């Protein structure tokens, strides 16, 4: 009797407790989300404040220098452009080819399964390991030197898994009925892919490419490993030229003890982030534009 009375009496209390626990938890969740956003803001703001004073046309248009106030990133920007150009040249056909094969042509057998598992695992390999691969295969065995070509071949292998995964997603958005109609009209498998599947899938595939390249632009460690130079007072003049890239130049400045070079590093970071954000904006815009235009 009395036990039941006690339970009944404590019930409103318990409900209130549970409700308060719930409120506390929600507050905690919101605080965590808020904190994450604040961290992002602090990160961008503190770097921006450090480097804002140094960003100017002269900064973009000068070479590396021993004097912090005369140093610039022209050589690094050119190096980044060269590297990205060649990386795109190698990785786009390879990545699209692999995605088309796996999505449209591959038979369902152990080899296909092995390739798919393998691509998943490659995506998880630390980038510096790719640096060791590039150092051995491209710099030493193929004797390409510490050049733009070595760097971009290595970088292509590094971003290939990203491009393949994104391109397959793009290909999968094209409904099977389109393929069947095309095959039914007598088109060959390749004609079907070339004229019916690729055109609508291409925007999403390009989005994947842009995201992969924006990852490649920020990569530093594997390029240091293959021996991209820390101090290069010239712009590359060909695929076999030595080079440096923006993040390596930033790393070089970070490592110097003088505070003036830290400012240069922060300014370099602003340029790098601006480059990245605009690439991402293009990717998102492209995706939204074509998603709205899709007919099915």
């Amino acid at each position, binding site marked *: 009797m009395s036990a039941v009375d006690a339970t009944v009496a404590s019930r409103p209390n318990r409900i209130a407790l549970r409700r308060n626990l719930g409120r506390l938890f929600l507050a905690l969740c*919101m605080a*965590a989300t808020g904190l*994450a956003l604040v961290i*992002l803001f602090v990160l961008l703001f503190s770097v921006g404040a450090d480097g804002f004073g140094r960003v100017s046309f002269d900064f973009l248009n000068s070479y590396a220098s021993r004097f912090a106030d005369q140093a610039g990133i022209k050589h690094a920007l050119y190096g980044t452009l060269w590297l990205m150009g060649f990386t795109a040249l190698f990785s786009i056909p390879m990545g699209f*080819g692999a995605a088309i094969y796996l999505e449209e042509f591959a038979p369902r057998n152990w080899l296909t399964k092995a390739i798919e598992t393998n691509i998943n695992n490659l995506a998880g390999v630390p980038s510096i390991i790719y640096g060791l691969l590039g150092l051995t295969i491209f710099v030493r065995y193929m004797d390409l030197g510490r050049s733009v070509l070595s760097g971009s071949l290595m970088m292509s292998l590094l971003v290939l898994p990203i491009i393949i995964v994104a391109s397959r997603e793009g290909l999968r958005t094209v409904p099977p009925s389109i393929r069947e109609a095309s095959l039914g009209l007598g088109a060959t498998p390749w004609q079907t892919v070339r004229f019916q599947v690729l055109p609508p899938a291409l925007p999403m595939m390009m989005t994947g490419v842009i995201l992969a390249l924006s990852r490649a632009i920020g990569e530093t*460690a594997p390029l240091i490993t293959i021996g991209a130079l820390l101090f290069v007072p010239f712009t590359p003049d060909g695929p076999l030229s030595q080079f440096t890239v923006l993040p390596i130049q930033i790393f070089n400045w970070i490592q110097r003890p003088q505070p003036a070079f830290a400012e240069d590093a922060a300014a370099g970071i602003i340029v*790098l982030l601006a480059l990245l954000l605009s690439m991402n904006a293009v990717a*998102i815009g492209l995706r939204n534009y074509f998603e709205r235009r899709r007919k099915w």
Partner: protein
Amino acid sequence: MSVAAGTVKNGTTLQMRAKRRSLRRVREAPIHAFLFLCAALSILTTAGIVFVLFEETFNFFKEVSLTEFLGGTVWTPTFSQKSFGVLPLFNATIMMALTAMIVAVPLGLLVAIYLSEYAPNGVRQVVKPVLEILAGIPTVVYGYFALHFIAPEMLRPLGQETSFSAASASLAMAIMILPLVSSLSEDAMRAVPQSLREGAYGLGANKFEVATRVVLPGALSGIVAACILATSRAVGETMIVTIAAGGQPNLSWNPLEGMQALTGYIVQVSLGDTEQGGIEYSSIYAVGMLLFLTTLVMNIFAQWFLSRFREEYD
């Protein structure tokens, strides 16, 4: 005449058509071969990685015994008295990765629960991509942030003495992997069917209880896999630990001291002009091998866990 000619003509056309069709298929063979080669390149890449690491690691172990490498506590490859005990580097890598996870996992899970269970659709659609910006920021930027903000502003007051510390690297890594944890966990939570939530509400549970006792366990395999992948990312992370943790091998559990990670050592040697063929050169491959195997085991474990413990709905 004309009829007969017609049949002949028709016959040849049919034959020609069949021929042309098979010709088209033959002509497509090189295209198919090219596409297959592109896909097979990934196998070649893996084979290349394994081969490259094995070759130089083999050279390394001709001069250094496996027990010295894995059991030794002193790492001084550049001194005249060379010693190749990898434990200081390995310990630093694992410690920094785990510290980063201790910060990133609770925070990331709370964010994921908020976005998946509480946040209005509009908030989620803005917050999620904004947080994913964090994952896209290059790691040198985090290195700069750790060295010029986290260390002097946050850790100096706590007793960090030099400008380098494992803790500043860990915190920067925690920020970097936070969106990885939160995004992947949120995806897993949203995959838990609505009917389970409604069932729990029907039994009188409130939102907090549904989130922590229904959704969280239901999404556990995805969450654990996300955490393992994030740890593996932290283990392989290079620039943050190189910039923020310093270049001094140091077997210590004090996160406020500087220490060198596996990846940091590879960068340090790459920056110098090390001649190929020396023991110092092959040591970066041995360290790389250890790093590769560590992350590989983690990634495979994550995939296995995901497939083994996946809750199948519908």
